[in-house]
């Protein structure tokens, strides 16, 4: 393609995507002295304008309903106006399609830092057994690595990004290098007491928030608004914690609004760089590098590889196994809430804390699977407290109570008395859940789009019913009243819509053999030594632990390996 503008520079590595994987890669590689190019499909992050931390609704004349009241028509930002989400399940001009009979929603962030700007920051290590799930129950696939391989990198990742938690010795959720965790709130203490009674383990949450100063980042100031972005970077985001510091080394060059179309290769079977569409000028450009690292998100990286077709690679790059796009997974989600009379009339206090719950319940039945009708497990997240009132907070209550003085006092009395539980569980990878290129559709950049196919199986449905039963038991044990589901609600809300938990992983899974996997244990493609995938695409299974921390650790480990291999001249 001689008409394309080719950068003069040849970088040591080009990294595609600036989220948890890409952020870790540019941090580790620039620290090792490598010259790195980072491509982000969205704009640069301006913390001052993008983060609405500390704001209140009356700072805006729309109060958070967004310009023209968009949120009233379901067209507002997916997590509300104040969230720092720059993206969503639908992006203008960048569609995807879904196969008949399937449901899947694909969340994409388009901004420096990606989804780490708004994510929940739950940071749980995978357990030892999580790396060998097939050995445990004969389902799914083992990882080519073990807990011992990744454990030192969990240490590094936790120590660098900062995770608050407590040492608990729970086998399903190994301990890490923790900052001090904040104390439990009142409603959480009631949950803990209920859990103690029911034999459910309930311990301090583990979130990527620092509670003492770290590398120039200030300790958390407990405004509880991590989802709006954290101006003091007390909550981890790859943009603030990894990319900005890497830029200061002078060895990182960031290309924003750069939408990668494909990986370029030469006749020696090596990757030579990437071809991208510069969104600012709508022109194709090329960046040359000795190593190509995809970290564009599980499905976006898969899409780039599928689109990297050539005579030598008619089915896309690194796809000799035909496994590219296969065994896509999301997390099983289910939620239930209730009201707790013990909280009625309690003297109010500030329940913001370090954002999110201060306690959680790791999977507690890891050795009792013979008594369950589903494999694998889930953890439980807790919601409750006196949160900031917002647009939409009281629509339901208003409908229930009509209007006037009665409605007003009922809303006042009910404020903060609600408790909510969200289950986050492991799905078994299945052959019905995958993505491929849609042969008939391209996005506004001319790049062929993904078509998704997805199915929950009985394993996931039964797990969700176990969640429902457990949550109801906890609420009841607290003396609370369950806001139960009707049969028709269960039909539609009994399990999360695939993709909506935003833990989609797999698609370029790692494995021992090039015959049935895309990557080796170092996130390196079996077929091309200088091509790596350092995001959730590499996951061979999707344990109930939120994926980000493991993406950080795997990327760090892969970069250490890559740098060694480069030194040895193997890459």
């Amino acid at each position, binding site marked *: 393609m001689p008409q394309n503008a080719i950068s003069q520079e040849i970088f040591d590595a080009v990294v595609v995507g600036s989220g948890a994987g890409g952020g870790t890669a540019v941090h580790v590689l620039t620290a090792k002295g490598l010259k790195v190019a980072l491509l982000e499909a969205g704009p640069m992050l301006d*913390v*001052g304008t993008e983060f609405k931390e*500390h704001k*209140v*609704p*009356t*700072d805006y004349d*729309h109060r958070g309903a967004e*310009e*023209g*009241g968009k949120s*009233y*028509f379901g067209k507002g930002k997916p997590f509300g106006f104040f969230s720092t989400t720059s993206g969503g399940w639908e992006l203008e001009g960048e569609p995807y399609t879904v196969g008949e009979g399937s449901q899947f929603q694909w969340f994409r962030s388009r901004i420096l830092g990606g989804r780490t700007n708004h994510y929940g920051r739950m940071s749980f290590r995978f357990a030892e057994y999580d790396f060998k799930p097939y050995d445990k129950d004969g389902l799914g696939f083992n990882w080519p690595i073990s807990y011992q391989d990744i454990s030192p990198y969990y240490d590094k990742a936790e120590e660098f990004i900062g995770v608050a938690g407590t040492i608990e010795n729970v086998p399903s959720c190994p301990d890490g290098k923790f900052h001090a965790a*904040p*104390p439990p*709130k009142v409603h959480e*203490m*009631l949950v803990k*007491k209920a859990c103690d009674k029911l034999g459910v383990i309930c311990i301090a949450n583990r979130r990527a928030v620092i509670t003492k*100063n770290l590398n*120039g980042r*200030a300790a958390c*100031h*407990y*405004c*509880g608004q991590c989802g709006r972005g954290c*101006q*003091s970077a007390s909550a981890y985001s790859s943009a*603030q*914690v990894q990319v900005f*510091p890497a830029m*200061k080394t002078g060895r990182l060059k960031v290309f924003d609004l750069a939408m990668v179309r494909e990986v370029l290769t030469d006749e020696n079977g090596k990757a030579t760089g990437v071809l991208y569409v510069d969104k600012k000028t709508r022109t194709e450009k090329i960046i040359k590098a000795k190593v190509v690292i995809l970290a564009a998100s599980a499905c976006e990286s898969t899409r780039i590889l599928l689109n990297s077709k050539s005579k030598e690679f008619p089915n896309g790059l690194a796809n000799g196994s035909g496994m590219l796009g296969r065994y896509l997974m999301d997390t099983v989600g289910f939620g239930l809430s209730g009201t707790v*009379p*013990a*909280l009625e009339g*309690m*003297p*109010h*206090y*500030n*329940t*913001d*804390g*370090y954002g999110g719950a201060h306690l959680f319940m790791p999977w507690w039945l890891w050795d009792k699977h013979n008594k369950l009708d589903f494999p694998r497990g889930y953890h439980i997240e807790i919601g409750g407290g006196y*949160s900031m*009132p917002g647009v*939409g*907070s009281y*629509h339901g209550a208003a*409908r229930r109570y009509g*209007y*006037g003085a009665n*409605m*007003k*006092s009922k*809303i*006042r009395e009910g404020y903060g008395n609600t408790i909510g539980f969200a289950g986050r569980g492991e799905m078994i990878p299945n052959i019905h859940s995958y993505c491929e290129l849609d042969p008939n559709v391209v996005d506004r950049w001319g790049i062929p789009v993904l078509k998704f196919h997805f199915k929950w199986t009985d394993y996931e449905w039964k797990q969700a019913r176990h969640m429902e039963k457990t949550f109801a038991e906890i609420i009841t*044990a607290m*003396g609370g009243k369950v806001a139960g589901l009707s049969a*028709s609600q269960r039909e539609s809300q009994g399990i999360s819509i695939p993709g909506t938990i935003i833990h989609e992983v797999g698609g370029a899974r790692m494995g021992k053999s090039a015959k049935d996997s895309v990557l080796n244990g170092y996130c390196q493609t079996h077929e091309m030594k200088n091509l790596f995938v350092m995001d959730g695409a590499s996951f061979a299974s999707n344990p109930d632990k939120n994926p980000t921390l493991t993406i950080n650790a795997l990327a760090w480990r892969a970069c250490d390996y890559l740098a060694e291999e480069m030194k040895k001249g193997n890459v």
Partner: protein
Amino acid sequence: MSNFVPLETIDRRALIRSLALGLTAMGAMDMEAAQHVHVETGAEKAKSGTYKVKTFTPGEYKTIQQLAVLIVPADTVSGSALDAGAPEFIDTLASQNVQIADIFHGGLAWLDAEMRKRYQATFVAAKPEQQTQMLDALVEAGRELAERQSEELVYQKSPIYKDFTGYTVRRANELGAGVAFFDWVRKMTVDAFYTSPIGFKDLNYIGNQALAKYVVPKEAMEYALKRSPFA
């Protein structure tokens, strides 16, 4: 709270700048700076001058104002939705979105027409008890409609064909259009009220502060535990 230390004297712009730079400045953010911004952003918006109506006629606006007082009235704890700026909020969004403007133009016209039919007076001109009678009727009709959603088809005698009994769709409520409008004016009024400083105070919301340390007050913990099954 004892660990809440408001600061009033520092130059706000400089502080926001230092906050915004965050990590790029490679300096630990000052606790004082964080606290100051939290306090400032809350206080600054409390001021409100005379509002110039952008979308509605004086008659329409008066009706929206009266609805605001009725939907969230003042009581011993806090002021009304009118005090909290609900009419301004609705007018502002209507000025930005013709869809909202039309919902209110049409809904307000429907309301006055219905009031004239019932009481020979517009909503604003009607007696207070007539106004609440109308709203009560809308709430009642709204509940009925909600219940019906899941049982659209009922086995009943046809109101039209005398000899026919079978599954028919129940007759729509005559107040249907009014119910839809009332839902809009109510949800926007409630939103405006609870997102305002008055609404924050009504609920006794005390978050969004910068704290040096997070503490759960003992009296709250004891209060709930005493009333729980774990007492």
